[in-house]
């Protein structure tokens, strides 16, 4: 599984309409923030589920954070999971605390629970999910442990 930070390969499809912005140089997730009460949520939505207000703004979220909790998905999810029929590798799933504003759920670029720990520094990455058959590359957001990230992520951090 290759970690590609700021490239969406030619012909690839970005999964998550309106969820990831700032490509190609400064990818970041986008949530929404309530002007009335300050609550931040992800993905962006048109109203506040804390105070019911509809006075919300789109809010770019921090690209680094700490891991709050995690699991490792041990079996291939059924369709419409894009890799439902591809050879399966376990993938991490967890919640990353982004600057104390909001915790976002994400795939984690780590398949071994021993490599993950609560409080671990994590950084936003773009993860390619290749679909067999059509060969279409699908790219989505994920988080990678900062201490395991390679030189390319340090370059763009």
């Amino acid at each position, binding site marked *: 599984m290759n970690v590609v930070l700021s490239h969406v390969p030619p012909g690839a499809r970005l999964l998550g309409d309106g969820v990831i912005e700032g490509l190609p140089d400064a990818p970041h997730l986008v949530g929404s923030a309530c002007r009335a009460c300050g609550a931040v949520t992800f993905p962006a939505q048109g109203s506040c589920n804390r105070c019911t207000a509809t006075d919300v703004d789109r809010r770019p979220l921090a690209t680094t954070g700490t891991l709050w909790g995690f699991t490792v998905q041990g079996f291939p999810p059924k369709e419409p999971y894009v890799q439902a029929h591809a050879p399966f590798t376990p993938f991490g799933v967890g919640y990353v605390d982004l600057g104390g504003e*909001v*915790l976002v759920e994400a795939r984690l670029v780590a398949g071994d629970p021993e490599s993950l720990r609560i409080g671990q520094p994590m950084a936003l990455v773009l993860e390619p999910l290749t679909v067999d058959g059509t060969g279409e590359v699908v790219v989505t957001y994920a988080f990678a442990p900062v201490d395991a990230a390679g030189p390319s992520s340090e370059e763009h951090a």
Partner: protein
Amino acid sequence: MTEVAIVGIGIHPFGRTDGVSGRDQGAVAARAALADAGIGWDQVQCAFGGSDAAGNADAIVNDLGLTGIEFVNVVNGCATGGSALTMADRAIRSGAYDVSMAIGFDKHPPGAFNASPAQYGLDEWYGDIGLMVTTQFFGVKIQRYLHDHDIDPEVLALVAAKAFRNGALNPNAWRRTPLSPEAIAASPMVSYPLTKYMFCSPAEGGVALVLARADIAHRFTDRPVYVRSTAMRSRRYGTFEVFSPSLAPERTDGPTVQAAAAAFEAAGIGPEDVDVAQIQDTESGAEVMHMAETGLCKHGEQVDLIRSGATEIGGSLPINTDGGCLANGEPIGASGLRQIYENVLQLRGDGGDRQVPGGPLVGFTHVYGAPGISACTVLSR
């Protein structure tokens, strides 16, 4: 204030019954409940029913009789049965009706549940990237819980082993072969740290309950079990539930805590008075967490209670005496009602090989489902 009693119960065995539709299983349960109450379908004045995968629950009137009654379909994920019972109870408690039915049945295909994001108001990409999987929530929640309360992961296998032990004593259960904690821990990892045999599986089954005004219960049964309270709650802002793309930084008590507290308060009975409890065990860690979230014990006490045998059938706090979701499987529409069915059996003294000794007086049920719903009941003789 009108009081309510459960006067008839019926069940179709859980698990897999080839060639019998989910609705037919529901009809078997309904007829058994009516027979138990000594009435015909024409005496049921109101019904609430739920099925996730076996068609609209109210289609069952085609089998039972077109009597024109108020029959409302309930859709609340795995909490459906608890919601249905809450409504059937309220229909009588409010003074609107004298006799009601709560029914639930399901027949799921094998493999993991595969809900669609749109059903829960989520965008399609959430499922496309592999996050629309209920087991992930339970994995993350128990991983965090074991860490926060310093709980030995060994309890996950111990609780599952208890489930299969109890299931072996339950003729209506699906999985009736005891499994050792070692075999459970060694089964394939599903969502770390939870293995295959720590998780329930989608299954089939049906349960029906006949409720009546308590002051006329004697017309139907000589062993009424009284519904002391019901409470159903959904998630508040700041909780951690299934299918949550984000969490608030400030976390708050979830619907299980809220529903259980409300049920105990309304009943005027405390968790310390509970003699038998059926609580949501979607996976064995859920039973552990829900023990504390419902107030049956404090966070962290679970290890001693489980290791000492307190949660066994003969212990001081018998939990999931019929094998729970782990041994019965999870037919979404029926499970919450199965819990109540089991408590009624126990309070009547009809638990057979799995009867809680000492004449239990108070039963408690707790069910939890996506996207963060809980329904609890307090029953007593």
